[in-house]
């Protein structure tokens, strides 16, 4: 009898798992970048929908019924957080009437929970400063290190919600991280060192000395090798959306074309930026495809700086098919422009 029970259970468990598997996990993310990372982690187990297309400014998405419909049957809602979606997340969560994805529940995930944050205000802020976010700059996904953290955060939450697939999520996470690490540090370095150590050293700024001490500086590959020659270069961006990228690869943003976050460029401000560009020998102006290029061209004409218009989200340009391709595209474009002369 005991044996029969055991053998029945042994059959029943995989059957139950299959029954769940018949219906895919429904993941809804606010942005395409989160959608791409969630797709890496959940693989074929999930259907991932992203609400804000990659070619649109995620600050200003209009709430509409189709977005509520997308979220209505979601098992997991993932947001960038740090108030990036403050203008539209609330009405969609209210309007979709999905009790599983209310904030505070396991079905609602803030991907910024564990990321490395920049520009967190240390003093009282005011809207006089423009669209400043009290919890820090929310464009953190352009730092591949944060992409890695977000992937882990998503894998953890998916494993809580769907413990049956914990193993799959774990394998997918490992695969994503190793792919990302390889693209960041190059093949050789990842084979010779523990990637966690590489990241820790890179963040500390001691990776160079470590590699130099072991005579392995030549082993650096990937995005790190591509950007190394340009470390310390000064750049100008349209919006404060590239600080994480600049921080990771050692670039310095000296000015934005927007006089204050969320306020379009004014002639007087552009005069000032043009002065800074000349003074610092800035070679690169970086901006997203959805902004007008008029202001940037005005400065380029006067200073000889180069304008690079590149997606800062997956889907913002054709080549930015997924998260890793996005970072790859941005790094290549930036390096091409900086190395142009």
């Amino acid at each position, binding site marked *: 009898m005991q044996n029969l029970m055991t053998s029945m259970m042994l059959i029943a468990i995989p059957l139950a798992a299959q029954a769940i598997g018949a219906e895919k996990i429904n993941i809804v993310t606010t942005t395409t970048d989160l959608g791409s990372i969630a797709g890496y982690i959940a693989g074929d187990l999930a259907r991932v929908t992203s609400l804000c*297309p990659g070619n*649109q*400014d995620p600050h*200003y*998405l*209009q*709430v*509409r*019924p*189709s977005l*509520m*419909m997308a979220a*209505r049957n979601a098992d997991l809602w993932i947001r960038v*957080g*740090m108030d990036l979606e403050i*203008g*539209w*997340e*609330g*009405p969609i969560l*209210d*309007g*979709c*009437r999905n*009790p599983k994805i*209310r*904030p*505070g529940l396991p079905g609602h*995930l*803030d991907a*910024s*929970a*564990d990321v490395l*944050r920049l520009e*967190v*205000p240390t003093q009282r802020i005011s*809207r006089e400063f*423009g*669209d400043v976010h*009290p*919890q*820090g700059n929310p464009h953190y996904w352009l730092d591949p290190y944060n992409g890695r953290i977000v992937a882990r*955060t998503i*894998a*953890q*939450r998916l494993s*809580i919600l769907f413990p049956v697939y*914990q193993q799959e*999520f*774990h394998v997918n*996470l*490992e695969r994503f*991280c190793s792919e990302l690490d390889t693209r960041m540090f190059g093949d050789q370095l990842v084979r010779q060192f523990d990637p*966690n150590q590489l990241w820790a050293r890179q963040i500390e700024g001691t990776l160079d000395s470590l590699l130099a001490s072991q005579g392995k500086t030549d082993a650096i590959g990937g995005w790190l090798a591509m950007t190394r020659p340009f470390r310390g270069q000064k750049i100008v961006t349209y919006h404060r959306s590239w600080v994480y990228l600049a921080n990771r690869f050692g670039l310095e943003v000296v000015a934005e074309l927007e006089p204050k976050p*969320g*306020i*379009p460029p004014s002639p007087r401000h552009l005069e000032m930026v043009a002065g800074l560009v000349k003074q610092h020998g800035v070679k690169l102006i970086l901006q997203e495809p*959805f*902004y*007008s290029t008029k202001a940037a061209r005005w400065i380029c004409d006067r200073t000889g700086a180069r304008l690079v218009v590149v997606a800062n989200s997956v889907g913002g340009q054709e080549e930015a098919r997924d998260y890793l391709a996005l970072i790859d595209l941005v790094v290549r474009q930036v390096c091409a422009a900086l190395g142009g002369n």
Partner: protein
Amino acid sequence: MSLLAIFSITSSLCLSGSAALADPLTAVQSLNPDVSAVLDTYWQTDDVRDSTGSLLEAIDGFAGTHAHEHHQVDGGFNMRHLELSFDGCVDPYFRGTAIAAILEDGAEMEVAQIETLSLPHGLRLKVGKFFSDIGYLNPKHSHEWDFVDQPLVYRLLLGEHGLNEIGAQVSWLVPTPFYMLVGLEALQGKNEHSFSYIGQDPLPARDGPRLCVGWLKLAPGMAGANTLHLGGSFAIGRHQEARDGNEDGDPDHWLDGQTGLYGLDLVYKRDSTLPYGQGDLAIEAEYLYRNKNMRIVGHLLDRSLEGRCKTDRQDGYYIQAVYGFAPRWRCGLRWDQAGLTNSSKIEGSTSKSWDSSWRISGSCDFCPSEFSRLRFQLSKARLRVADTAQDVVEFIVQLQVSIGAHGAHAF
């Protein structure tokens, strides 16, 4: 990389909530409700002797019973109101919203509503004082309007505050493959234009709720950033009037009966991918029809009319388009007409009908940021008052700002 952390389920869930906050002070403050104030001020001028507002109160067929004095538009500087809003989750089950409209000479409770957050099957319950979801424009606060003023048909059939009542609402997001929201409301019925309650002799006393509202909102699936929204609604409720026929300041005849209000709305919106609202387009059209069936319960001037039925029929529509023609700049055009059907009939006695009134308005607004808006609006209207056409040209400059944690706006 280890996934060990996932086994401490509770700790990880708590962490992801609190870790999002930079410091303990922020965490404590996040328990406060979202507080905001909307300041709405404007400068108005027109070419008529009486104010445009008083003409609107006297339009043929729509003239109200003047139960209370309205805040009249004054040529020159005006303060529409100061809107104070408190909003937050009560607990995991309820959300509370309190909005006070503070005028120069007092305050009005605009919204005091409690909504459920976690009912299953797409259901939601709302109780308190709120804007009815009848029509497309009615649930919108004045600072969400695309023009300074309401369309004529709203102003004339529902008044400046729209249908804003105490009661309860149940709504259901129907599990169809396209968006379909249906709702029913039981309201006290105190709208002085269409669902008024007096309850004093000789009018009968009637307990509430005296007004029942139902609506349906549909949004068929459309590609990309295009949205089509269709709505239909009805409101059927008790209505009482105390009228002053000889204009001596005291009511001399009283009516008691029922009003039916029926509406259709159609909205198309396009959300452009350009920043700062450039390229965004919104086209809206609404039609409202009202049918008042009343009995004359007392008539001091003509006793023979007592007991007779009086039937009033009025309608109106508006159609408008607003387009973001440059970053932060929008322009809008609205055509408004009220009283295409406009008749009043007393059974076995007089029957009257009036011509319609119309208005055309053009607006242009500039939003320096998401929290401020400067708007210019020019209107030309032909209003029917006492069987004569009154031409009015009106020009308004409006400045609206919002301070504090002002939440996002619904569709």
